[in-house]
């Protein structure tokens, strides 16, 4: 892992059904009082340039494919941070009919930040911790842990065409064929 992207990681934030509480606290981290930019962190909207994925919310069924899509588009090495109680486990939304109980049921999570809402100081702590993890990773490919349908590799990339899965694969249940090549 090159030193440079640890010194200046780019951050992508996605709201996967959160109540906005944690989103706004992430925004507060970027603002003057907490100022996460002093770690060289830049907020980007583009997954292809991002190193850190911050996810809030319990993953609603509509947001599910989008989360996986964003994760797959990010280049390796990458880290994923689940911000807030509901991103970690589903929190207060756990078991509601339209949520999937936490980020880690779809993509591997490196750092969990608890709290409802997570305090900006906790978020900074988590991001700094994730930088250590990022430094230890190499360019090996990482995969979503579960999808509606198998993960297939096409010419060295995760094939995104089947991400949302067909109805047939939905009925067969979820398959986890993570590192198959």
């Amino acid at each position, binding site marked *: 892992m090159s030193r440079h992207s640890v010194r200046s990681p780019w951050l992508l934030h996605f709201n996967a059904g959160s*109540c*906005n509480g944690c989103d706004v606290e992430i*925004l*507060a981290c970027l*603002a*003057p009082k907490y100022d996460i930019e002093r770690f060289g962190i830049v907020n980007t909207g583009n997954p292809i340039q991002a190193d850190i994925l911050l996810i809030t919310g319990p993953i*609603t069924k509509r947001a599910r494919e*989008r989360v996986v899509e964003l994760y797959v588009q990010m280049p390796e090495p990458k880290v994923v941070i689940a911000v807030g109680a509901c991103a970690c486990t589903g*929190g207060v939304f756990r078991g509601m009919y339209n949520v999937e109980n936490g980020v880690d049921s779809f993509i591997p999570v490196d750092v969990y930040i608890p709290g409802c809402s997570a305090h*900006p100081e906790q978020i900074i702590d988590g991001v700094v911790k994730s930088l250590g993890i990022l430094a230890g990773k190499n360019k090996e490919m990482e995969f979503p842990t579960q999808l509606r349908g198998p993960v297939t590799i096409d010419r060295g990339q995760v094939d995104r065409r089947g991400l949302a899965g067909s109805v047939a694969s939905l009925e067969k249940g979820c398959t986890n064929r993570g590192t198959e090549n």
Partner: protein
Amino acid sequence: MSRTYVIPLGAQHVSLLEPIRFLFTVENERIASVEADIGFVHRGIELACATKFKFKQVPYVVARVCGLCAVVHSTAYVTAVERLMKIETTRRTKWLRIVANELDRIQSHFIALGHTSECAGFEALFMACMKDRETALELTEAFTGNRMQFDYVNIGGVNRDLTPEMALLMKKKLSLLKNRVNDLQELFMSNWSLSLKYKGIGVVSLEDAQRFNATGPIARASGLATDLRVEADMLPYGDVGFELALETAGDIHSRNVVRLRELANSIRMIENILDGLPVGDIEVPVKGNPDGDAISHIEAPRGQCIYMVRGNMTSTLDRVKIQAPTFANIPVIVNAFVGEEYGNAPPILASFDPCLSCTAR
């Protein structure tokens, strides 16, 4: 020769705080039609309120409908339940609830102002707004114990009392904040480059506001005098010095001005409350289970928030219906885009300050 393009904005985009997707049909830079898709954050809270949770837990669940106006949702819910169960809360409780609601409005309006200026390309003003918002959040933390999601109100009362030291601290910080709001007001009114992006853009006419039933700052910026703080009697806003902020132009600029004037008014109301807070208990005992149905209306930072609660003599409710302000405002938002340039879409959207987690629940 004109060609039409379809440009999607969202579900994930830098200028969006929350997932919403717009499909703009663009004709030579002008927006010809818009479609909005708002369901990305639907979680199913209404059903869970009526099945999973007891009615005494629900105030804290409905707070998670939206982080920015959490206390408004809790207040609306508890007022409805108190009406059902014929609970008369103390005056002190009501005044403390106003303080929590107005602190919430202050921080929410700061975000809206900051976000509009960021979308207009004025990053420094965004940072300034966020810095001032921290003052409001510090007060919230001192007053309730947490920055966001502070779960302040419960059925029959509030969870924390206001101590004299806290009141002193609040007064000191609020007077600082008042000066900052004055400065911001001057900046927003007189900055020439901001007026290029704001004045005459994203206009909602009075007829449109009435026809589409707009609420909140959007309606008030178009000259439609509607505010549940005077129209409904859920909280005694008349006693604490409420003033209606009304503008007539209906563009981004006047929406900002309405927000700034409401900020100043909220600060003044909190100061009045701190000066004359009635003495008394902060809680009354709650016995029994709710029966029948009741409706409550509270003015959220973004407009009217309406709750309908139906009980059935057990500890679980039959139905909780949530009507959030942005849901009522979506038609007027979509309509305001038509005829504008595509480049202006992010600031227009930010000036409406949509809250999708309220809308989708």
